[in-house]
Each structure stands twice: as C-alpha cells, then as structure tokens.
C-alpha cells in the first residue's frame, strides 16, 4: 500500500538493506538488522523461533495434564489447576503454535522462493504481523498471571461469562493473534497472485504454494468472524450487551455457531499446510512427478471451501434442528473426498518411484498413516447416531490429535528436516533424526490409541477423575507422552546440533527438482541472483537436468560471484 522511498542514487548496503547477492544470514549484521528486517526469510526464522517456544510451552502443559491423569484422583494438582492446564495446553497449541507454525514460519521462508519472487508483496506488513503476534502472545499469556482461564480453548458461553476475568485477556490475546494471521494470509494471497516469476503459471506452482494459497484464503475469510465473536464476548463481559446471554435476551448457542464458523475452517488452516508439505516430501523422495498434480492442487482449494460449510458438526448435541444436523452431517462426509484425493495421489506417486528413506520421508509416510486414521475416525464423528455416543469423549480428543499432531506436527517436523539445510546451510545427522522419528511415531501412537479405546467406552474428555476400568488406558497414554517427548527432544537436539556441528549443506542435498533447491544454500538476500525464468514444473524429474538435481541453477554465476568477492 505505502511506498518506501528509496533514494534514487546511493547504495542499498548503506541504508541497511544489504547486498542482494549475499547470503541472507550474513548480508547485514546486528540486532537491528533482525528486529527491523523486512526480509521474509529472517521473519520466517523469527516466527520459527517463537512457534518452537510456544510448542515447548504447550508441550509442557500437555505433559502435566497427562501426568495428572496417570493415577485416579489427585496425582500432582487439584481439579481447578488441572482445568487451567488443559485450557492453556489447548490455547497455546492452537493459537500460538499450530496456526502460525507452517504458514508463518516455513511458508514465509519458502513461498516467495518457490514462486521466484524476491520477497512477499508487503514486506513491512509481514514484519508487522510478527510483532502483532508477539503482542498477542504477551496478552494471551498474561491471563496466567491474572488467574488463568479454565474454560477450555473454546471459551463456550455461558461459562466463559461467569468464570474469572482472565477470560478477557485470553480472548483479546486471541483477537490480536487473529489479526496477525489475517495479515500473513493477505500477504500470501497477494504474493501468489502478483509476484510469480515468468514461467510460473498456476499449473506450475509448487503444491506447497497451492496449499499456502488455500490456507490463506481460509485465514482471510474466517478469522474476522472469530475477531467479532471474541469482541462480542469481551463486550458481553464488560457491558453485558446480551448477545450470548439468555438472561438478557441472547442465545448462548449462537456463540458456538460463531466460534466454530471460524474454528472449523481453522482446522483446515492447520491441516492443509501439513498436506502441502507432504506433497513436496513425497515427490522429492520418490523422484517422481506428483501423481495427479491438478487434483492435488484443487483438493486444497476444495478443503478450503468445504471447511466453511461444516461447522455445525461440532454442535450436533448442542441443540439444532434435525434437518440442519442432517445437512451438516452430509456436508461433513464430503470432506473425505478431497482428503482421499490427496492420500491416494501421494500413494500413487510412490508407486514405481525411486524411494529414498531419508528422515523427512519417514515423516511423510507417518503423515499418510496417521492422517488416514485421524481422517477416517472423523467420519465416525460425522455420523449422527454415532456422534451422540462419542461427543465429548476421549474419542474426539484422539481423533483431532491424530489430525493435528499426527498430521500437521508430523508434517511440520518433516518439513523442518527437509528444508533445514536450505534455511541454515547445515546438514543434520540423519541417524539421530531417524531415531527421533521412531520415538515420536511410537510415542504418539501409544498416547492416542488408548484414548480411542477409552473414548469409545465412554470416558468423557476434560474430566479430572475417572473410573477404575480406564486406569490402564490412562497409564499407557501417559507413558506414551514421555516417549513422545523424548522423541521431540531428540529431534530438536538433532536440528540444533546441525547448526554448530553439521557439515556444510550443498545446494540440493536431496536431489529435488523443486524451485527452492535451485538457488544458493542458504539463499541470497534476493533469493535468486537473477529473476528466474521457469521452463518446467517443480516435479518434472524427467525434464530436470542432472546439474539441476545436484547443484541447482546459476552455480556458475554464483561461483563467479564468490570469486569476485575473494
């Protein structure tokens, strides 16, 4: 929107923008060069740092919740504190971690590179969104000091109108975070529409970019509804405006409708980026063009559209007309179509491919397996008669953890391992990464398979105490959480260790045909030394030259450039 006035004459290095041909990590130095950067790669890294910390915090709350449930009755904390723990676990994981994780961290870093752009369309708005995110984090976490929220991350009325006042700081925090999410989505939409390099047509866009595009659509269209919902909730608490309060003539179920009108699409804000990463991983490590490229791309858009039509399935037992529940149930089943398209196409891509079992590929395999379980159990819940039995049980908890954790987080870890060499210029230790993977995979299933069983037998979610017959399942689940945490720490250690011990990464360590591997490692400040002109698709292994699959583009030019510097 606004124009930055660059001096017509004068060096850019002098005004703090650095040499466009220098490695983005070294182009400029000092704290200000990071805090005030408009480079999408640095902003991506800053986001990555923040979401990793949020993941750690949310993970600690998860471990505390599981530890409390290890034995019946009180194990470590009382019931009230337990309520706060699971609320904080949910709110931190959803709003601080998963929603910004893939788009704001990996998307910020790779979306412009993958379309051959020098930056996102609005670099300063990109930086602004990061600081708004930080503000949101502070406001949200200030609720802990003010007495912590115990409503669960869904803030259902009327309870959220009666419990402690810290609900306001948490909802305002989420409101602010939503604004940050909107700005990221807006930026990506405009970037994809207007910044593609010559030759990157819509049908040559990497599937990661398609996924980010679909995600951005949801972020832009759904988040404002959450904003107004939370604003109304805050207004309700401050002034009692009465929209959700039956005493004052309002309707508490309306809150649930509003909330899920955002939060169901938000599920696709979380999972579509995971699928987007997975498409890249499967193609690269199968050395094959993705099967049914166009169908996979369109299935992301399909999920974005269907995501807006199914919010009612969270309210089957909250009081809706039978006709409405039937419609929502039918629409919910439609979601299986684009999800199925993706799973089948990934599998078909691997058929007769030259599969390489690198650590990111293990995560990609785990994604297909775990997401299939998560998706199929979603069909159980979409079935009206079954849902009445399973609503608010551990079955639901296990279902969405299979999608969110087994889907998005697994893909996020796979994507991190896959792109780590490009982002940092260092190779991680594959052996440690694989050990970490097996801990994560085994631990994750140990946590949540018992929860499916408990849930189907009637163990309600969010309960502090439980009947004796559920004890073995809870014990297994808690032990699983320790295995999972071990795996995550091993993976985090592997990634961090690479920073100081890893060998220098080549340009294209995985031999991918994707555009992002064609540039320097780590990328130069302007992403490419010259604006690339694309003549093949990102998965066209049959068209990519052997040089491209080993050293990427303009190696010669880059070599010349290095020499010149020497």
């Amino acid at each position, binding site marked *: *929107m*606004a*124009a*930055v*006035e*660059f001096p*017509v*004459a*004068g*060096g*850019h*290095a*002098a005004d703090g*923008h650095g040499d*466009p041909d220098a490695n983005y990590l070294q182009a400029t130095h000092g704290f200000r060069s990071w805090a005030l950067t408009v480079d999408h790669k640095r902003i991506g890294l800053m986001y990555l740092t923040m979401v990793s910390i949020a993941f750690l915090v949310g993970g600690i709350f998860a471990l505390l919740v599981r530890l409390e449930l290890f034995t019946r009755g009180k194990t470590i904390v009382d019931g009230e504190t337990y309520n706060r723990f699971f609320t904080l676990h949910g709110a931190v994981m959803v709003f601080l971690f998963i929603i910004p994780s893939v788009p704001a961290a990996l998307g910020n870093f790779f979306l412009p590179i993958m379309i051959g*752009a*020098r*930056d996102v*369309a*609005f*670099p300063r708005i990109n930086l602004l969104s990061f600081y708004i995110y930080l503000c949101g984090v502070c406001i949200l976490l200030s609720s802990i000091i003010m007495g912590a929220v115990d409503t669960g991350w869904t803030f259902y009325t009327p309870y959220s109108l009666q419990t402690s006042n810290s609900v306001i700081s948490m909802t305002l925090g989420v409101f602010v975070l939503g604004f940050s999410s*909107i700005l990221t989505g*807006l*930026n990506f*939409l*405009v*970037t994809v*529409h*207007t*910044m593609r390099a010559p030759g990157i047509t819509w049908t040559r866009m990497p599937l990661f970019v398609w996924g980010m595009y679909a995600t951005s659509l949801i972020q*832009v*269209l*759904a988040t*404002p*509804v959450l*904003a*107004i919902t939370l*604003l*109304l909730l805050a*207004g*309700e608490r401050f*002034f*009692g*405006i*009465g*929209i959700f*309060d039956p005493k*004052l*003539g*309002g*309707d508490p179920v*309306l809150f649930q409708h*509003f909330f899920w009108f955002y939060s169901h699409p938000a599920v696709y804000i979380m999972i579509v980026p995971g699928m987007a990463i997975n498409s890249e991983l499967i193609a690269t490590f199968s050395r094959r063009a993705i099967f049914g490229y166009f169908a996979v791309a369109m299935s992301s858009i399909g999920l974005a559209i269907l995501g807006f039509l199914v919010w009612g399935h969270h309210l089957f037992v909250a009081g809706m007309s039978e006709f409405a529940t039937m419609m929502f149930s039918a629409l919910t089943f439609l979601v299986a179509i684009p999800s199925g398209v993706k799973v089948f196409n990934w599998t078909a891509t691997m058929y007769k491919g030259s599969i390489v079992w690198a650590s990111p590929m293990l995560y990609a395999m785990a994604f297909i397996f775990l997401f299939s379980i998560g998706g199929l159990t979603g069909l159980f819940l979409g079935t009206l008669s079954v849902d009445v039995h399973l609503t608010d049980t551990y079955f639901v908890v296990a279902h969405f953890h299979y999608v969110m954790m087994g889907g998005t987080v697994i893909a996020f870890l796979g994507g991190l391992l896959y792109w780590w060499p490009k982002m940092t210029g260092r190779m991680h230790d594959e052996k440690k990464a694989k050990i970490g993977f097996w801990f994560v995979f085994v631990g994750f299933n140990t946590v949540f398979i018992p929860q499916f069983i408990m849930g189907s037998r009637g163990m309600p979610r969010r309960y502090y105490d439980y009947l004796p017959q559920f004890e073995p399942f809870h014990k297994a689940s808690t032990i699983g959480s320790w295995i999972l945490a071990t795996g995550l720490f091993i993976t985090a250690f592997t990634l961090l260790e690479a920073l100081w011990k890893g060998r220098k990464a080549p340009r294209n360590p995985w031999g991918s045909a994707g555009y992002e591997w064609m540039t320097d490692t780590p990328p130069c400040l*302007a992403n*490419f*030394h*010259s*604006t690339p002109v694309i003549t093949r698709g990102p998965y066209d292994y049959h068209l990519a030259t052997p040089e491209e699959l080993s050293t990427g583009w303009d190696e010669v030019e880059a070599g010349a*450039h290095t020499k*010149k510097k020497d």
Partner: protein
Amino acid sequence: MANVSESMAGTERVGHDAHAHPEFLQHHFDTPTQQFNASKLGMWVFIATEILMFGGLFCAYAIERGLEPQIFDDAHHFLNKIMGASNTVVLLFSSLTAALAVRSAQVGKRNLTSFYLVVTLLCACAFLVIKYFEYSHKFHLGLLPGHCFGHPGLSAAIQDGQEVGTCLHVNAEAAPVTPEWVKAVDESGHVRLLPPRANMFFGLYFVMTGLHGLHVLIGMSILTWVLVKNIRGKFSPAYFTPVDLGALYWHLVDLVWIYLFPLLYLVGKPE
C-alpha cells in the same frame, strides 16, 4: 555501490539497479504496474475481511431480530430517522468527493485532490458530530446495552399523564410492567414503554454503530495521511496508489453504513 552496479551491467540482475527505478517503486517489485496491482488486491482482500467481521454482527442482528421481532419494532422508534438519514447523505456525499479525489490525483491536479480530501474529511467530522448527538440522547434516556439499560433517574424526566403510545407489551398480560421497564418519549413524540429485554436492540445498535464509528476514525486517519503526502507532492499521474486505496477504504465505511441505516432505523411497522 559502484562496483555492484558494474557487476550488474549487462545481466538481468535482481532489481537494485537504481537508475532504472522510479523513486516510489519498492525494491522487490519489477514494475510500477505490478506494485499497483499488488497494493490494490491487498486492499480488496482487506476489505473482504472487514465485510466478514461486520458479517458476524449482521448475522447476530438477524438471529436476535428473529427471536424478538416485537422488541426490535418498539425499540427502533427511539432512533432518530432524520439524523440517521442526514448521516447517510453526508457519507454518500463524502464517498463522491473521495472518488473525485482519486480522479484528480490520476490527472495530476494536486490542489484539487487536496480540496476533495479535505471535503471528505469534513463530511466525516459532520458524521461523527451527528452521531455524538444521537448517542448522548440515548445515554440521557437510559437506552443503553445490557445491564446499563434503564439507568435510574433518567426515565423519571418524563412527565406523568402523557399519552402512552401503542406498545403491545403494555397490553400483554403475560409481561407485567416492572420498575425495570423504561418509559421514554420516542422520536415521534409518543411516550413508550420498553421491556428490559429491549437492551438487546440497543446492545446491537451500540456495537454495530460503534464499530462502524471506529472505522470512520480509521478511515479519517488514512485519508489525513494521504492528504499530508499529497500536500508534500508525493503523488503524480504515475503514482497515486495511496489516494486510490484510501478512497477504496472510505467506500467500505460508507457501504457498511448504507446497510446499518435501514436495518436499525427503518425496518419496522409504520406507525
């Protein structure tokens, strides 16, 4: 810089070749057209988010009105149709002047652009002044949202013995009149009784018009910023993006009001 330019010579290097670039073109865009298209699309997407945010309120309005149609009908008589209509005219006119500002910026008439922007801003001020009178009258009568509804001492200002206007709730035996009911003179001079649940109408009224008023303020800040840049001579027929986008945002502010006015002020049975 000198040797960097040298190394760029002859190759299609990334766009930092300052000589070829107009002053307003940001470093990551290739052409002014690309920059303009990006900015314009960005503003449209942002407007879409605004519409969805107000959409939540319109949806709440539809549902609450469906629950209590009679209360909405009774309560809307307390909104001043003359003031509402004047504000509609003021905003429509300001949209016209905003559009004219864009046109004069396109053809490079700087002073005329400033003139139109100032007129637009004055209209915005007029809107807020009228809104202030409306709000203060509601405060005076105790027609406030939620718990504040029927603030004591305010309805006492009504003289006793005045004719009570048509209000179905007074006649309905199922709904006895309690001290919480608000008795006040509506905008057509009738004394009218409103049940406590009428707070939901005023809750919506204040939230919807309040959020809209906030957008008027945001729009005014944007237009003021554009005006300052225009006076400093930053715009030309080749670059007038901020004027265009500022006006576009102002049209959104206008458009939301176009829907608020009939929904709150006019929808109801004629007396």
